């Protein structure tokens, strides 16, 4: 089978998984299936699936709206309704979508939530987001408050607190909404599959250590994390998807191929960079192309860790089901303190032999952005490698200035090239 056909297979599979999920959501009212709205960081997909509940992720809907060119209209509508121009555009995009009929990315109307599962990990805005949705839907809400890893580690007290909420708040709420008793073995089974898929995802992400890197770990990476960050972690489909993806990437490595970009395969890898921060979704392809035009490959990114830091070693564990769900929630990237985030970036720079760091700072997201300039300086100080700073937004196209970003990227890569030219020959001629 040709590599192109193999590539299509994993992409096709993912597309099909998503389409089927949204169709199922579209039919949920007739089929009687119950839906739970929740967030990507700290999602409890295995637990929901153990109750046969269907997850709906408003963040994914918002980013899809951004990619489909709908977000401008949705944000405009929310602002007209009194939502401030200063706040997270995911929230406004979601509210605007709701007020426009709640049509999901595949054209189906999304069902109203039977439960809002407010898993409050890594970002305070989540709290407000579901308070806002609760007023719109009048749905019951259950909160899972996940403390912050302020000292760079999970303490027994934090774990105990999260597990207690899972046992005494979240699981009873899921039992009520599903009408089913909690079956821990069903949960274990899901977690077992999660861990296997996580192994494969990590393998794929770490394949970027190769030269040339067979993947782009940011622009391509957002596709790879799709199933595991959204509704599919713990499912058989996710397991198969990641196995297939791994095989495809292995083949690319064997053939010495670089990543596929919007303009086709990248012929020559000129720059290897680490990126901190989420992408822009409204001009996603254009943004990606700016990198590809420079021959730049993102070899590691932090955004692909917002839904779990598997490459740092975490795995869901069927032998410690609730504790491992707690550790998962506590360990999501934006729940790590700034010094740990700096350590992760420095580790990536080294592990992936990166030429430098680029921070893409989005206006919407204080969770990511507040402190990024200090992080940038610290990484530069520790690694001595060139750093660059770009600004735009997630789904508000008004804040994506293509000319400005392109200019900054060009100057950045010029600087990297100059620095490289000035470096001692040993470095340049290293294998």
């Amino acid at each position, binding site marked *: 089978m040709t590599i192109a056909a193999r590539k299509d297979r994993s992409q096709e599979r993912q597309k099909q998984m998503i389409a089927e999920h949204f169709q199922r959501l579209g039919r949920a009212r007739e089929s009687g299936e119950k839906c739970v709205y929740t967030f990507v960081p700290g999602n409890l997909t295995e637990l929901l699936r153990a109750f046969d509940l269907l997850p709906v992720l408003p963040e994914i809907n918002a980013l899809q709206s951004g990619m489909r060119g709908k977000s401008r209209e949705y944000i405009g509508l929310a602002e007209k309704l*009194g939502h401030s121009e*200063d706040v997270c555009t995911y929230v406004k995009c979601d509210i605007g979508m709701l007020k426009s009929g709640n049509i999901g990315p595949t054209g189906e109307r999304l069902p109203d939530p039977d439960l809002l599962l407010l898993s409050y990990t890594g970002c305070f805005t989540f709290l407000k987001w579901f*308070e806002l949705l609760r007023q719109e839907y009048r749905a019951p809400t259950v909160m899972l408050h996940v403390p912050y890893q302020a*000292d760079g580690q999970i303490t027994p007290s934090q774990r105990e*607190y999260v597990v*207690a909420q899972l046992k005494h708040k979240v699981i009873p709420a899921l039992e009520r909404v599903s009408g089913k008793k909690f079956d821990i073995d069903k949960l274990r089974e899901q977690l077992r599959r999660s861990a296997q898929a996580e192994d494969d995802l990590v393998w794929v992400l770490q394949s970027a250590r190769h030269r040339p890197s067979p993947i782009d770990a940011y622009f391509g990476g957002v596709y790879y994390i799709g199933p595991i960050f959204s509704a599919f972690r713990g499912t058989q489909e996710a397991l198969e998807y990641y196995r297939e993806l791994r095989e495809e990437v292995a083949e690319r490595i064997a053939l010495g191929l670089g990543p596929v970009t919007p303009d086709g395969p990248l012929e020559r890898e000129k720059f290897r960079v680490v990126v901190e921060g989420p992408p822009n979704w409204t001009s996603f392809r254009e943004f990606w192309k700016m990198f590809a035009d420079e021959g730049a490959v993102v070899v590691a990114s932090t955004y692909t860790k917002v839904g779990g830091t598997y490459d740092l070693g975490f795995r869901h564990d069927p032998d410690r089901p609730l504790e491992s769900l707690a550790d998962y929630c506590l360990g999501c990237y934006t729940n790590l303190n700034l010094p740990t985030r700096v350590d992760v970036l420095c580790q990536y720079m080294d592990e992936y032999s990166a030429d430098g760091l680029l921070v893409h700072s989005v*206006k919407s997201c*204080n969770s990511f952005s*507040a402190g*990024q300039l200090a992080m940038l300086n610290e990484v530069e100080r520790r690694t001595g490698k060139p750093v660059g700073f770009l600004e735009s937004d997630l789904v508000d196209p008004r804040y994506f200035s293509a000319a400005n970003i392109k200019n900054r990227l060009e100057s950045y890569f010029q600087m990297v090239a100059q620095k490289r030219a000035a470096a001692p020959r040993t470095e340049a001629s290293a294998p």
Partner: protein
Amino acid sequence: MSASRVQGIVERAEDLCRDLRLESVRRWKEQNGGLAIGFMPIWAPRELLRAQGCLPVGIMGGGEDVEIIKGDAFYQSYICHLPRSTIELALGGSLDVLDGMIFPAICDVIRNLSGIWKLRFPERLAYYFDSPQDFDPQIGGAFLRRELEEFSHALVQRGARPLETEALRESLAAYNANRARVQALYQLRRDEPWKVPTWELYLLQRAGLVAPVEEHDRMLDEYLAAIRADESRRPLDQARVVLTGSFCEQPPLGLIKTLERAGCYIVDDDFIQVGRWFKNPASLDGDPLDNLVNAFLRDSLESPTRYEEQGNKGEELVRRVADSRAEGVLFCTPSFCDPALLDQPMAVRAIEASGTPWTAFKYAENNGQFQVIREQAGTFADSIKLFSEALSP
């Protein structure tokens, strides 16, 4: 005579408020030898700090008096002003007198500021104080108790004395007494707002962020006595309003004065809530640490930073409007303040449902021009007065 007494007290409070290098804290340390621990908005366990011989010092950013030179290099333009002025203060040495800083769990900006502190000042205590959003005593309560114990232990490691039950009980009593005074002033302002201009009340509360609690008590007592005796303060035809949204980054003093001069009696507000965070006195019976935990769980003010398990957002604001017999609401929020601005549509909905007029504007702590806000607040106050005149028989 009383007018000048009032003026003297308010000037003292303003001096403390503008003492950005924290000279009063330095003096306290020289005299008492304890640790001085800074805390960011909104709430910190001051009772516990005091019981361990520490001076809690509220840091509300640098306000209007700090020129930002280095702070802007730390923050993008779309982040509120408070963290950049706070880091400016720290880099300029103003906070050197503090032995540690508490960063309460209220928003991503303060949360991440705790990380900047750790990166920039690795030798200093930078304590992110995580308070629960689950208010079940067995779950969130147990977590908060452990947080307090861990925090207490961290203080001991820095040289504070260990926490003792009696000392904590006495400290709860001291802060109960202080809150009672602050609440009495709030009540007096609700009843006779011409006697307690908000800008004065505000400065007195700011003074309470740096002064030891007993000293603050004396200041409040003196102020209360002086304004009661001051016959020159007479009612004016002003609109009674509740101001909300200013719980963290504080507006410049000039803005508060502008609102009052524009025809508003601010009869309730959410400035500097730490001094009023518990609505009732904390119990002094039984285990004082449990009492502190229970006060937090059951008796805290409603805040955009706190999850509402029951009911609708904004209901407490509607109640506050009713309790203070306010005729309108001013949503007065710092630019880019996520908790306040995300909360606002819900609060507006509740306020509109109650039929109360409202208006909204934003500020930064270092704003120097209030012309637009003066006009907006003036028009708002006039419309309220016209409306109430039209309704009166």
